[in-house]
C-alpha cells in the first residue's frame, strides 16, 4: 500500500512539471471560471497561446503568489475589485506594464498611473427602491440614507462584503472618518433587518416588503432579470443614481495585472490587451451586465434601461488604502 502510494505521488509530482515549450500564459483569477473561461478560450483560438487557469478568492490567490515567491508560475492576476489589486501592488507582487493600447483604451482614473494594474469593467452600487412605494424625489444622496426618515426601511448586506467596505472607504476619502462614522451609525439605525444574504437577497427582501430601499451592485439586479426565479422581484424595483449633483455614484472595477515574476510576461500583456478589445468588452457588457471601460461598446438592454449616470471620479487607489479604516468604522457602528 505504502509503496503504491509512493509511486503515485511520484507520478503526481512529475505532473507538476508542466512543459513550458509551447506558448502559454498562466492566469490566477478571482473572477470565477464561468465568467472568464469563454473569453480565454477565444483568446487561445485567435492566438494559439494556451491559457492555464486557477480561480479562487482574491486574497488567497495573493497569499499563494506571495508564498510561491520568485518561482510563482502566475503571469496574469485577475481581480473583481480594486482593493486587492492595490494590495498586490503594495506587497510587491506586480510589475508595471507600458502599453499604448491599454493606455488609450482605459480612462486614466480606472488604471494605476504607473501601469501596475488596469481596470477591465466597472460596476456601480446605486440605491434600488421599490417602484411606487418610494418617491424618487425623496432620494438624493448616500448621505441622506442615514436620516431618520428612512428608519427601518433599508436593506443592505453584511459589512463582511468587499463592496460595502469599498463604498465606506470611498466615503471616508471624501467626507473624512468622523462624518462617515456618524453616517454609518445612522444607517445602521435605519436597517429593516440584521444584514444577511447577498446583494440579490436585499433586492428580493425589498420586493417582498421587508424594506423600501436596497443597496446593491447593478449586475446583480441585471442578472435577476435573466433568472426565472428572481425576475418578478427585479421588475418590482427601480434604480436611483445617488449623488449626481456632487461626486457621483460609487463604482468599483474588475481588473487585471501582470505578476512580478511572470515567466510569460509578453503573453500576459497580450491577453490583457485582448481583454480591452471590442469583442471582450462587449461580452462582459452583454453576458454579465457590467459596464465596459472602453467607450462606445454596446451595453445589454437591461443596462440601458437603468439609464446613464455620473460615476465617482475618486482615484480607485483610495479604496484600497482606506479599506481597513472602513471595516473599523463599520465594526464601531455595530454593522454586522
Amino acid at each position, binding site marked *: 500500500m505504502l509503496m503504491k502510494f509512493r509511486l503515485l505521488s511520484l507520478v503526481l509530482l512529475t505532473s507538476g512539471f508542466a512543459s513550458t515549450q509551447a506558448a502559454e500564459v498562466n492566469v490566477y483569477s478571482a473572477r470565477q471560471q*464561468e465568467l472568464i473561461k469563454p473569453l480565454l478560450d477565444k483568446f487561445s483560438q485567435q492566438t494559439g497561446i494556451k491559457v*492555464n487557469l486557477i480561480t*479562487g478568492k482574491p486574497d488567497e490567490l495573493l497569499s499563494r503568489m506571495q508564498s510561491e515567491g520568485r518561482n510563482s508560475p502566475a503571469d496574469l492576476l485577475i481581480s473583481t475589485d480594486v482593493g486587492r489589486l492595490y494590495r498586490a501592488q503594495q506587497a510587491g507582487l506586480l510589475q508595471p506594464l507600458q502599453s499604448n493600447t491599454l493606455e488609450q483604451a482605459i480612462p486614466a482614473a480606472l488604471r494605476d498611473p504607473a501601469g501596475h494594474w488596469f481596470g477591465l469593467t466597472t460596476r456601480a452600487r446605486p440605491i434600488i427602491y421599490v417602484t411606487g412605494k418610494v418617491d424618487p424625489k425623496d432620494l438624493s444622496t448616500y448621505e441622506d440614507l442615514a436620516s431618520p426618515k428612512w428608519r427601518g426601511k433599508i436593506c443592505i448586506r453584511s459589512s463582511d462584503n468587499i463592496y460595502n467596505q469599498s463604498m465606506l472607504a470611498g466615503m471616508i476619502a471624501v467626507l473624512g472618518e468622523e462624518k462617515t462614522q456618524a453616517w454609518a451609525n445612522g444607517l445602521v439605525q435605519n436597517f429593516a433587518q440584521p444584514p444577511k444574504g447577498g446583494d440579490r437577497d436585499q433586492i428580493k*427582501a425589498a420586493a417582498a416588503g421587508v424594506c423600501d430601499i436596497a443597496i446593491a451592485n447593478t449586475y446583480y439586479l441585471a442578472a435577476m432579470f435573466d433568472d*426565472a426565479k428572481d425576475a418578478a422581484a427585479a421588475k418590482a424595483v427601480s434604480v436611483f443614481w445617488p449623488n449626481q449633483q456632487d461626486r457621483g455614484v460609487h463604482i468599483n472595477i474588475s481588473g487585471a495585472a501582470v505578476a512580478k515574476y511572470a515567466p510569460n510576461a509578453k503573453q500576459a500583456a497580450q491577453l490583457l490587451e485582448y481583454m480591452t478589445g471590442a469583442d471582450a468588452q462587449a461580452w462582459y457588457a452583454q453576458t454579465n451586465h457590467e459596464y465596459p471601460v472602453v467607450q462606445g461598446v454596446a451595453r445589454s438592454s437591461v443596462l440601458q434601461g437603468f439609464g446613464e449616470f455620473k460615476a465617482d471620479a475618486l482615484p480607485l487607489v483610495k479604496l484600497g488604502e482606506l479599506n*481597513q479604516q472602513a471595516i473599523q468604522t463599520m465594526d*464601531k457602528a455595530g454593522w454586522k
Partner: protein
Amino acid sequence: MRASAFWRHPQWWLLPACLLLPLLVVYVSWGQFDARLWSHLATTVLPDYLLNSLLLAAGAGGLAALLGASLAWLLHFYQFPGRRLFQLLLILPLALPAYIIAYSYTALLDFSGPLQQGLRQLTGLGYGDYWFPQVRSVGGAICLFALVLYPYVYLLTRAALAGQSPRWQEASQILGVSRRRYFWAVLLPLTRPAVFGGMALVMMEVFADYGTVQYFGIPTLTTGIFRTWFGMNDRSGAAQLSSLLCTLALALMLLELYSRRQLRFYHAGQAGKTLQPQKLKGVRAWLATFAVSLVLWLAFFWPALALLVWSLETPAAWLSLDYLQLLGNSLSLAALSTVLLLVVALVLVYGLRQGLPAWQQLLIRLSGLGYAVPGTVIAIGVMWPLSAFDNWLDLFMEQQFGVRTGLLLSGTVLALLLAYLVRFLAVAMQALESGLSQIKPSMDQAAASLGCSRWQLLRRLHLPLLKTSLWTAALLVFVDVLKELPATLLLRPFNFDTLAVRTFELASDEQLAAAAVPALTIVLAGLLPVILLNKAALKN
C-alpha cells in the same frame, strides 16, 4: 516504554509533529502582537465572535448527538417498517455541504420565499404583522448544522453498537433488568464514547464552518478570521484568531478525553449470534417510521428536491459543465485521500494503544486538531512550509549547480492531499479509536504470548475486528473530502476543478439556480460510495 525506545518509533512522534506543523504556524503569529488591533476587536466584535461560535457549536453538537444517537439506538434495537432502507438513507445528509442546505432552506422559508408568500396571500397579512421563525439566525443555523451533521454521531454510535456483544442484553434480561433500566445503566454508558466522539466532530466542524454563517450574517470566530485577514489585511491578527479557534478545539478534545478517563469498554469476546431487533407493533411501529422519515425529509429529501427543481429550471447549466472531468477529479481525490487518511490514522491510533509516554500520546491527539480549523487556514499552513522548501531548494540548486528546480511540491496534488490529511485526520482517528477501544488489551496479550508479532497482531486480530470501524471511517472521510472546498480552492494545480469548487463559484456569484447543478452532482457522486461503504460497514 523506556526512553531508549523513543527514537525507534518515528511514526509516533515525527509523523504527528509534521502534521502539527501547519497548525503551529498560527500560534507563531503571536510573536507579532498588535495591541491596537486587539483593543479594537475586544471592544467591538470579539465578544460576539466567541459567543456565537460557542453557542453554535454547543447547540448543533447537542442536537446532532440527540438525533444521531436516538436514531442509531432505534434502528439497532427495533424492527419497524422501512428499517433496512433507513439504515442506508440516514447517512445521505452527509453528502450535502452545510451551506447548500442553508441556501435551499432560506429560499423556502425566508420572508420572500414561497411559503411565507403563500401565507400572506391566504391571510392578507403584511411584513411585521405576524411571527415566523427566522431561518437566518443562530437558532436556524443550529438546526441546519444538526440536520446535516448528525450522521457523524449516528455512524459512530452504530459502529459501537454493532461491536457490543448481545450477551450484555441477555445477561440483563436474565437478571430481570427492565428495558428502561437497561438503556440507562448499560446501553448509554456503553455507547457514550461513540456519542461524545461524534459530537466532538460535529462541534469541530461547526467551529470551522464559514459558508453557512457568512450567508446567515452571523459573526463567528471563523468569519472574524477572514474579516481580519482579507478586510483589514492583517495576516498575523487573523492567525491569532485562528489560534483561539485551535485552543477551543483543544479544550473540547481534552474534555472529551476527560469524560471517559476511567471508562474502559470492551467486547466480552466474539459472541456466537447477533442480536435480533425487537419487533414494534401497530401505532408504535408507524410512529418510529414516521419519526425517521421526518428527519430524512428535513435533512435530505427536501433540500435535494429543491436542488433538483432549480437545476431543472436552468437546463443550460447542465450543458456548460465539463461533468466527467469534474466528477473524475472529485472522486479520484476523495479515493486517494481516503486511503492515505486511513493508513495514517491507523498508525497513530495504534500508537495510542502501545502505552506510549504521555507527551507522545498528547502529540498524537493534537494532530487531530486540524478538523476545527477553517480549511483556508490549514491550506495556508500547508502552502507556506511547502513553498518555503521549494524556494530554498531552488536557490540551493541554482547556487550549487546552476539549475533551477522551481516549485516541486506546492501547486501539485500532493499539497492538496497533505491539507486533507491535516484537516480530516480527526474524523478517521475518532472512528478507528472508538472501534479499537472495544478490543480488550488482554486479547493483545494473549496473542503476544502465543508468539504473534505486532504486525501479525494487527493483521490477524485487529483488522478483522476493526472492519466496521474502518469502513465507517472511510465513508466519513470520503464524503468529507468530496465536499471539501477552501483548501481545494487555494491549493489546486492549474486547470484542476472539482464539483465543490464549481458549486461554490456559482453560489458565491449568487447564481443559486446554476449552482444547484454541480451541488446535485456532489450529492449523486456521494451516493454510490455511501451505498457501497454502508453495505460493507453493515455486513461486518
